[in-house]
C-alpha cells in the first residue's frame, strides 16, 4: 500500500465518528430519495401492469336505461376497440350485527359465460382472491370486494342483505375479488370508505331481472385502440378520448346519460394518481434538502482536515508529490465517506420503500404489489450524492493545492480578530471575556457560523415539514366535517324525491333538524373548455351544508347564478362576472347559461353551487331533492339508523362520526410513521451538523482551551467557551428553522395540491415546539459527546506543539 493511502486510512480512522455521522446524513438523503422514488415507481408499475392485465377501460359513461343493441353502435365509434355494457346499482346493504346502513354497488357480471366458457372478461377483469365464482343460475351467490370482507370479517358463506328495487334479498358470499375499478374504494369522497361501502358482483341476469333491466344497460365502459399509448394511463384532455366521449354522449343522449368521461375522472384512478404524484414530489424536495446539508458538512470537515494537515501537506510537496496527487488524495477521502453514505442509503431506501409501499396496500388494493428499485434510481441518487460530496470537497482541495510549501511549514500566525461590531458601535463592555470570545469567534467566521445555523435550521425545517401534516389534516377535518357539514347523518336518495320528504324524515326517531338539497350531474362549459361536476342546489339559509371559503368564511349562492369552487373556475378559465353553460344530465337534460357570481376557495370538492329553487327550475322539475342532512340526538342514533334501513329510496347513509373514525385511525398511523421517519432523519442531520462542528472547533482550538485550563479554568468553564458558541448557533437556528419550515411546508402543500382536495397549510405551536425540542436534544447529545473529549484534553501534549 502506498504511504499516501496508508495516511488516508489513518485519517479516516482518526475522524471515524465524524465520518459515520456524515455518511448517515448522506444515507438519509439517498434513503429518502430512493424510498420515495421506488414507491412512486412501484405504484406506477403495479398500476400499469394491473390495468393492462385486467383490461381497465379508458372511457366510462352511465345512463338511465339504454337498450343492448346500442352496444354495437358504440363499438363502431372510431377509435373504440371494445365495449362492455352492464347494470350497476347502488343499494342499501345490511350486514348482520351492524346497526348502520351501508351502501353496496351491485354490478352484474355474466357468470355463466365466465364460468362455463372460461371466457376472459372483456374488461374490468376480476381477480378472484378467495372462494369461488358464483354458480351460474344460483341467484343468491355473490362476490364481494376483498377489502370489505376483510374489515367486516365476513367469512365465505356469510349472508348479507340488500334492498334490490325495494325488495330485501339475501345474498351468500361465495368469494372475494379485486377489480381495477376499485383499487381505491369510495362512494365519491377522497376518504377511504372501506367499512361502509361494498362492491358486490352478482349474476347479470338476476340483477337485470330485479330492476326490469333485461335487454338494457345503465353503465358502459370502453377501451380505446390506441389507449396503450396514453401516458401513465391518463386519458384526460387527449383528443381521441374527447372525440369518443362526445360521440358516446350523442348516442346515449336519449337514454338519460350523465355524460361520459375518461380515466382522469374515474374516482379510484383519480385518488391513486394524486397519491402517486404526491409521492414523486416528496421524493424530490426532501432528499434535496438532505443532500444539501450533507454536502455542507462534508465541505466543513474537509476544510478542517486540510488546515490541520498543512504541515504534512507541505512535507509531501517538499518530497515531490504534485498538486494533482495531493488533491486526489483528499478527493478519495471524500469518496470513501460518500460511498459509505450511498451504501447505507441504498439499504435504508430499500427498506423504507418496501415499508411505505406496504402501507399503501391499506388504501390501494392490487392483486400483487410489485416493489421495484430500479438501477437508474439508485444511479441517480448516488450520482447526486457524489456530486454533492465532491462539490463540497473541491473548494477545500483548491486551498490545499494553492498552499506554498514554505508557507505551509510555518505555523499559522495568530488569527486576526477585531472588536465586536457591538463594541465598535460603542455598546461594548457588556460581556465577560468568555462571552466576548464566543461572540468574536462567531463574528470572525460569519460564513461558517451561517453555514452551521443553516444546517441546523434545515433540520428544524425538516421536522416541521414532517409533523405539520397532523395539524393540517385536523384542520381539514374541522373545516370539511365540522364547519361545512355539521350534521350527524347525510342521506342520498337513489332518485329525486319530493321536497316534502323533510317532514317524513323529521318524524324518525331522534331527528331534531332536517335540511334537504339536490345535486345534479352536469357538464359545465365555458368557451372550448368543459368539466364534469355536480351542481348542488342549496335551500336558502342552509346551515347543515355550508359553503366554506377558507380565506373569507361562509359563502352563499346568488339568485340565478352559480358559485364555483376556485379549482373548477380555474379549469374552465372563468372568473366572477363570466358566464358558464350547464348541460344537466337529468330530467329533460336542460341547458342553461348562467352568470358566475363568484368563486369559493374550498378545501375539497369540485363544486358548482346554486339556489335549490333555481336548479329545480332549470331542470324543469318541481320542488324535489336528492340528499338530506339530519341533526340527530346521539342517544337515538342507533334507533334512527335501524329505521333508515326500511326507508325506500335511500341509497346511501353516511354517518359522519364513523367515517371520521376510520379515516383518523388509518391516517393517524401513517402520519405517525412518516413523522417518525422524518424526525429521525432530521435528528441525524442535526447531530451531524452540531457534532461535526463541535469536533472541528475542538481540534482547532484545543490548544487555546488547554492554555485556559493551564491558567486554572475548570473543565466546565472551558466547555462553556466551546459549547457556548454552538448553543448560540442553535438558538439562532431555531427561529430561522421555523421560518424555513413554514416555507418548506408551503412548497410541499402547493406542489401536492390535487384536484379533489388541497391540504391547508396549518402549523400549530406544538409542532414548532416539537421541531425545536428535537434539535435542542440532538444538540445536547452532541455536546455531551464532545464535552467528554474536552474533559479528557491532554494538557501537556496539546501544549507541547503549536497547533
Amino acid at each position, binding site marked *: 500500500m502506498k504511504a499516501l493511502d496508508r495516511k488516508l486510512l489513518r485519517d479516516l480512522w482518526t475522524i471515524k465518528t465524524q465520518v459515520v455521522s456524515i455518511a448517515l446524513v448522506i444515507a438519509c438523503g439517498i434513503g429518502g430519495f430512493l424510498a420515495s422514488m421506488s414507491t412512486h415507481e412501484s405504484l406506477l408499475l403495479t398500476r400499469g401492469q394491473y390495468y393492462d392485465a385486467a383490461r381497465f377501460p379508458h372511457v366510462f359513461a352511465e345512463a338511465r336505461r339504454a337498450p343492448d343493441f346500442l352496444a354495437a353502435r358504440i363499438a363502431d365509434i372510431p377509435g373504440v376497440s371494445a365495449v362492455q355494457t352492464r347494470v350497476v346499482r347502488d343499494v342499501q346493504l345490511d350486514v348482520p350485527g351492524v346497526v348502520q346502513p351501508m351502501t353496496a354497488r351491485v354490478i352484474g357480471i355474466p357468470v355463466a359465460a365466465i364460468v362455463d366458457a372460461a371466457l376472459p372478461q372483456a374488461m374490468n377483469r376480476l381477480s378472484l382472491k378467495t372462494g369461488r365464482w358464483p354458480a351460474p343460475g344460483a341467484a343468491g351467490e355473490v362476490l364481494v370486494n376483498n377489502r370489505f370482507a376483510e374489515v367486516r370479517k365476513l367469512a365465505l358463506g356469510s349472508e348479507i342483505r340488500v334492498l334490490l328495487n325495494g325488495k330485501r334479498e339475501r345474498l351468500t358470499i361465495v368469494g372475494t375479488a379485486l377489480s381495477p375499478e376499485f383499487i381505491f374504494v369510495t362512494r365519491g369522497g377522497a376518504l377511504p370508505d372501506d367499512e361502509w361501502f361494498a362492491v358486490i358482483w352478482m349474476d347479470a341476469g338476476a340483477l337485470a331481472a330485479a330492476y326490469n333491466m333485461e335487454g338494457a344497460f345503465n353503465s358502459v365502459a370502453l377501451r380505446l385502440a390506441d389507449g396503450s399509448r396514453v401516458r401513465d394511463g391518463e386519458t384526460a384532455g387527449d383528443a381521441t378520448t374527447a372525440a369518443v366521449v362526445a360521440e358516446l354522449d350523442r348516442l346515449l343522449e336519449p337514454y338519460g346519460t350523465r355524460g361520459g368521461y375518461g380515466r382522469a375522472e374515474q374516482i379510484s384512478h383519480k385518488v391513486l394518481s394524486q397519491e402517486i404524484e404526491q409521492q414523486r414530489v416528496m421524493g424530490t424536495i426532501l432528499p434535496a434538502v438532505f443532500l444539501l446539508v450533507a454536502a455542507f458538512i462534508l465541505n466543513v470537515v474537509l476544510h478542517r482536515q486540510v488546515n490541520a494537515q498543512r504541515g504534512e501537506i507541505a512535507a509531501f510537496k517538499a518530497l515531490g508529490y504534485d498538486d494533482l496527487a495531493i488533491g486526489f488524495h483528499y478527493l478519495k477521502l471524500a469518496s470513501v465517506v460518500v460511498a459509505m453514505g450511498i451504501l447505507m442509503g441504498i439499504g435504508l431506501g430499500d427498506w423504507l420503500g418496501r415499508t411505505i409501499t406496504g402501507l399503501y396496500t391499506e388504501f390501494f388494493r392490487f392483486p400483487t404489489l410489485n416493489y421495484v428499485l430500479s438501477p437508474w434510481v439508485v444511479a441517480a441518487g448516488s450520482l447526486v450524492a457524489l456530486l454533492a460530496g465532491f462539490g463540497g470537497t473541491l473548494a477545500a482541495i483548491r486551498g490545499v493545492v494553492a498552499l506554498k510549501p514554505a508557507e505551509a511549514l510555518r505555523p499559522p500566525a495568530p488569527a486576526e480578530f*477585531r472588536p465586536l461590531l457591538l463594541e465598535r458601535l460603542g455598546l461594548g463592555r457588556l460581556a465577560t471575556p468568555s462571552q466576548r470570545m464566543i461572540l468574536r469567534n462567531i463574528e470572525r467566521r460569519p460564513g461558517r457560523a451561517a453555514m452551521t445555523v443553516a444546517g441546523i435550521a434545515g433540520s428544524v425545517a425538516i421536522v416541521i415539514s414532517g409533523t405539520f401534516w397532523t395539524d393540517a389534516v385536523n384542520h381539514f377535518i374541522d373545516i370539511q366535517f365540522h364547519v361545512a357539514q355539521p350534521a350527524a347523518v347525510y342521506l342520498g336518495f337513489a332518485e329525486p324525491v319530493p321536497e316534502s320528504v323533510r317532514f317524513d324524515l323529521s318524524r324518525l326517531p331522534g331527528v331534531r333538524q332536517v335540511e334537504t338539497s339536490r345535486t345534479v350531474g352536469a357538464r359545465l362549459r365555458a368557451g372550448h373548455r368543459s368539466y364534469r361536476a355536480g351542481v348542488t342546489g342549496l335551500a336558502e339559509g342552509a346551515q347543515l351544508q355550508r359553503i366554506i371559503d377558507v380565506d373569507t368564511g361562509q359563502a352563499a349562492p346568488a339568485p340565478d347564478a352559480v358559485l364555483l369552487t376556485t379549482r373548477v373556475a380555474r379549469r374552465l378559465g372563468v372568473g366572477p362576472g363570466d358566464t358558464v353553460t350547464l348541460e344537466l344530465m337529468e330530467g329533460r337534460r336542460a341547458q342553461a347559461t348562467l352568470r358566475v357570481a363568484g368563486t369559493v376557495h374550498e378545501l375539497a370538492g369540485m363544486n358548482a353551487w346554486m339556489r335549490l329553487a333555481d336548479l329545480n327550475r332549470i331542470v324543469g322539475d318541481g320542488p324535489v331533492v336528492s340528499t338530506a342532512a339530519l341533526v340527530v340526538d346521539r342517544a337515538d342514533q342507533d334507533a334512527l339508523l335501524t329505521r333508515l334501513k326500511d326507508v325506500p329510496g335511500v341509497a346511501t347513509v353516511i354517518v359522519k362520526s364513523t367515517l371520521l373514525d376510520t379515516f383518523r385511525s388509518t391516517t393517524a398511523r401513517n402520519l405517525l410513521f412518516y413523522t417518525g421517519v422524518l424526525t429521525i432523519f432530521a435528528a441525524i442531520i442535526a447531530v451531524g451538523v452540531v457534532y461535526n462542528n463541535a469536533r472541528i472547533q475542538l481540534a482547532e482550538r484545543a490548544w487555546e482551551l488547554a492554555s485556559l485550563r493551564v491558567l486554572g479554568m475548570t473543565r466546565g468553564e472551558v466547555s462553556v467557551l466551546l459549547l457556548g458558541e454552538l448553543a448560540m448557533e442553535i438558538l439562532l437556528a431555531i427561529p430561522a428553522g421555523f421560518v424555513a419550515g413554514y416555507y418548506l411546508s408551503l412548497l410541499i402543500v402547493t406542489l401536492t395540491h390535487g384536484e379533489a382536495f388541497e391540504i391547508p397549510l396549518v402549523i400549530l405551536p406544538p409542532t414548532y415546539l416539537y421541531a425545536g425540542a428535537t434539535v435542542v436534544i440532538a444538540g445536547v447529545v452532541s455536546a455531551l459527546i464532545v464535552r467528554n473529549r474536552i474533559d479528557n484534553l491532554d494538557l501537556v501534549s496539546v501544549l507541547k506543539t503549536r497547533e
Partner: protein
Amino acid sequence: MSEATTTAPAAAPPIFVARGLTKIYRMGEVDVHALRGVDLDVAAGEFIVLLGPSGSGKSTLLNILGGLDVPTAGEVRFLDHTLTGATEAELTRYRREHVGFVFQFYNLIPSLTTRENVALVTDISEHPMAPEEALEWVGLGERLDHFPSQLSGGEQQRVAIARAIAKRPQVLLCDEPTGALDYETGKLVLDVIARINAELGTTAIVITHNAAIAGMADRVWRFANGRMAGIERNPRKLSASELSW
C-alpha cells in the same frame, strides 16, 4: 549529590519539596523514563534556571511542579499541599490560585485583546492586580486594546507574562520563554521575569537551552537523562542587560 547542595538557605521556608520524582511514559512495549528519581527543594523567592539537553525531562518536571501532570512515583509538596495524589479539581484550584505559566509559544487567546487576555485570569482569582497594572509591569501599558495578531512575538510573550503574574502567584514557571524570540527581544522578556522575581518576590523557575541565561539565577539546575546532574549557586545575580549570549 549531597544534602548541603540540594537544600535551600535555611532563612526562607521551602516552597517546593520533591523527593524521588519518577515519570515513566508507557509507549506500547517500551517505557520512556522521563524522570528517574529527582529530589529538590525550592525556597520562596528563589530564581532558578533549569538547563539541560532536549529530552532530558525539564518540561516534565516543570509540568509536575505546575500541577499539569502527575509523577509515576515520588512526592511533591507545595507549601503545605501535597500535589501527588491530588484530584483533578484540586490541581485546577492549585493552578488557579498559586501558579503562573509562561510557554514558548505565548498561548494567548487570539480572540481577546491584551487587556482581556489578562482579565481572563483576574476574573477567576482572589486578589489579582488590575489587568492594566500587570501590563504596566511588562511595559505594555499602552497596548491595552490590541489583539495578539497586532503584537510582535516579544510583546505577545510579555502579555503572557502579565497574564501569568496578574493573579499574584507564588510561583512563575517558564518553559523556554525566549525559545521563539530573537536576542534583543529575549533579553527584554528575561528582564521582566527577573524584575518580577526581585520586586514581587515571586519564585521563578525558568527552563532554557541557553547557558548564558544562567547568570541571572540564584541557583542553576543542570538536567541530564531524567536526573539532576548538578546544582550551582551564583554568588551574584546578573541583570539581563549584563548577560551576553
